[in-house]
């Protein structure tokens, strides 16, 4: 059944919204390729990106239950999604407990990631915050086979990165220069390479526990 669902992919163009704030669509979107993001636009035009969504991430699973979107989901870079009808999600959660548990796991992991981003934003210096995001993306993308041992496609702009970290593009530029100068990263041709993964993880005190990648010993799985 899941295989059938994943056959119906559609391409979302760069700078297109997958779903906008206030909408209540009939489909849930699953990212298959590329990057999408959760974001909120303020009345003065400022934007905060609250999550980066990579292949395997549900964009809007909760919309099957909640009334309407309280934020927007879009892609500044283009991505491929699958639309899963809300009725199918309801059927899966009602009649397939293992899948329901996996969807629950996905939601809890999203929350864990959001908590870590909050810690990053509130307590980590901008250079460590950025390093932490790079370590997180490497691990998440490796999990779904979209990164090699030390690099991944990273199509976003410095301005997108600034809106993700909640710092100015000037600070992003300075921090990138600093991380490059320390031989920690190379970001070229839309590909981010981490030159020494263990050193970068140590630099930003990265602990992937919030991604909940290990299964419980009782055999419950995330799939």
């Amino acid at each position, binding site marked *: 059944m899941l295989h059938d669902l994943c056959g119906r992919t559609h391409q979302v163009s760069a700078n297109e919204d997958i779903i906008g704030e206030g909408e209540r669509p009939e489909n849930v979107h699953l990212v298959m390729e590329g990057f999408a993001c959760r974001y909120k636009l303020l009345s003065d035009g*400022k934007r905060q990106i609250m999550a980066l969504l990579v292949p395997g991430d549900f964009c809007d699973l909760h919309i099957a239950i909640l009334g309407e979107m309280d934020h927007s989901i879009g892609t500044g870079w283009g991505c491929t999604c699958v639309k899963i009808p809300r009725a199918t999600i309801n059927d899966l959660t009602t009649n397939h407990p293992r899948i329901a548990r996996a969807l629950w796991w996905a939601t809890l992991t999203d929350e864990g990631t959001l908590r870590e981003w909050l810690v990053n934003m509130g307590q980590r210096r901008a250079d460590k915050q950025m390093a932490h995001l790079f370590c997180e993306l490497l691990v998440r993308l490796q999990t779904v086979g979209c990164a090699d041992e030390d690099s991944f496609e990273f199509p976003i702009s410095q301005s997108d990165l600034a809106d993700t970290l909640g710092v*100015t*593009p*000037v*600070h992003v*530029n*300075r921090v990138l220069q*600093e991380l490059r100068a320390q031989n920690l990263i190379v970001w070229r041709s839309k590909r981010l390479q981490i030159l020494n993964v263990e050193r970068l993880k140590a630099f930003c005190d990265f602990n992937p526990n919030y991604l909940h990648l290990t299964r419980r010993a009782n055999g419950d799985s995330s799939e």
Partner: protein
Amino acid sequence: MSLQLQPVRVKTGSHDTEGQLVFTDGLLVAVLVRLSEDHEGKAGMWFLEAGFDGAEERTHPTFADLDAAQEWIQRRLDGC
């Protein structure tokens, strides 16, 4: 305009070292830094490195020149 400027060198951890302290009535209210060539399209513009008493902004604005920066700081001090 009641603001006074004083050139200063700022250690920002980058090539952006040319700065101006901005005073109002003898009190420091902002630190502006001129963006270096590292910033390409924004090189030469003035970045609000720090501001006080209303002349701060979480998103640290960038200004085309010192006049624009001072106008913004003055507006903030005036409570606008």
